[in-house]
């Protein structure tokens, strides 16, 4: 693990303490984390953006987890949208281009400053955000599904 990087991650604007869940996996829950500062730091360190996971929250907001990898360590940083918007990191990290477009398409999140905010998977005339329905037990209850 890279102790310098861990310290710098924890001092980013809006950051919280990192939590070690396994030998090589560090997690942070920081709803207001500055994701552009995060992207710039990770690029400087040579980390790659592995992917971003979106999860619908109540009230129309979305939780987005940025999954980075540096060497043999995974960094998972969880943020929340505000008015279902987040700053785009695509101008900093080319890998974010399609990832953010997919989340815009499936979860209706707006990534402000994305260089090409076109739909990735579905036609533009369809309403964005059709992946926002609940899963798990809540989804089963909403669908009236029996065990």
């Amino acid at each position: 693990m890279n102790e310098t990087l861990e310290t710098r991650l924890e001092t980013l604007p809006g950051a919280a303490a990192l939590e070690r869940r396994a030998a090589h996996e560090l997690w942070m829950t920081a709803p207001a984390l500055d994701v552009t500062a995060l992207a710039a730091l990770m690029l400087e360190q040579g980390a790659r953006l592995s992917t971003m996971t979106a999860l619908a929250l109540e009230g129309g907001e979305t939780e987005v987890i940025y999954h980075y990898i540096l060497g043999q360590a995974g960094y998972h940083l969880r943020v929340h949208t505000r008015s279902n918007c987040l700053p785009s990191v695509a101008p900093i990290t080319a890998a974010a281009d399609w990832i953010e477009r997919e989340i815009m398409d499936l979860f209706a999140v707006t990534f402000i400053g994305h260089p090409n905010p076109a739909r990735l998977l579905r036609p533009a005339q369809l309403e964005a955000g059709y992946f926002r329905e609940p899963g798990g037990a809540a989804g089963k209850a909403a669908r009236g599904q029996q065990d």
Partner: protein
Amino acid sequence: MPYRIPIGPYHPALEEPYKLNIQSKGEIVEDVSVEVGFVHRAIELLAQRRNYVQDLVLVERVCGICSNIHTLTFSMAAEQIASIRVPDRARYIRTIMAELERLHSHLLWAGVGSEDIGFQTMFMEIYALREKVMDVLEIISGNRVNYSMNCIGGVNRDITDPDTVLAAVREIRAGIEKTIIPIFTANRTILARTRGVGVLSREDAVAYGVVGPIARASGLAIDVRQDFSYAAYEELGFKIVTQDTCDVMARVVVRALEMLESCRLIEKALLELPGGPLRPSELVTVIPAGEAVARVEAPRGEVVYYLKSDGSDTPVRVKIRTPSDLNIPSVRAMARGQALGDMAIIQASVDPCCSCTDR
């Protein structure tokens, strides 16, 4: 005056649909954009409407080539949340299946790539060899495509006749050594069409976040089998293959040499196959509340699954990131300044999978 040339979504180089919009000035490509989504099936959404047992069947359909990898990664994420220890024999069988899948995927790519540069005889040689891999997969699993080998906690089927599989894999290795390695590394046609073509610099490889053979051909020594070891790779002693010329040739060589490493891993795993159970005695149907990220090295590179459970029999969220999600956009960096006539092999060198990308 620049020209705009659309290729696809249905086009001669691939069986799957995606669209390349090429902007060229004369014969030189100035820029490229890629459109996907033509086979989007909402598998992630469907996965949160089904239970864990049904999801194994579902995620195996993400991709027809690396189907086994998807059930493996999904199972690993669930096992991580539930703290399930996979039996040793199952770990070895998972490794053997993963490497057989890599062999057939790399051979499929090598055949398609040969055809793209007009090397028909090479295509036929490679596909004859690939058939032998498919036969081995059928001997083990009973299936040529969706093998249904993985379950949460282990594997569904045993390898009952390791000697037959070992003999077949040795024959495949001999074919790779005799035909593929010499032709892919020394043949004039291959060298003329691939050397210095479609360069993806190391810096661009990091920026685009590319994975798998694309990354390793650009000098990045990344491989999940090495960096986040799983199944039986640590015991078997995995050896990474990299090249630093960053061109189509490097991608060809990486895949060719990786096939030999796959054969070595399969042979060693078969010789050292431990005894013991294959899976838990009871079918795992409910996963405790929690979340996990699992990674596996698919033939095209790192596959990532994020799984969140609320303790019921149905996941809250299944996020699937396939290697082609990151590799296909890098075609843009490879194509700029290249000859129009090389676009077929440049985009094929990425080994793009639209079923994976669109999910």
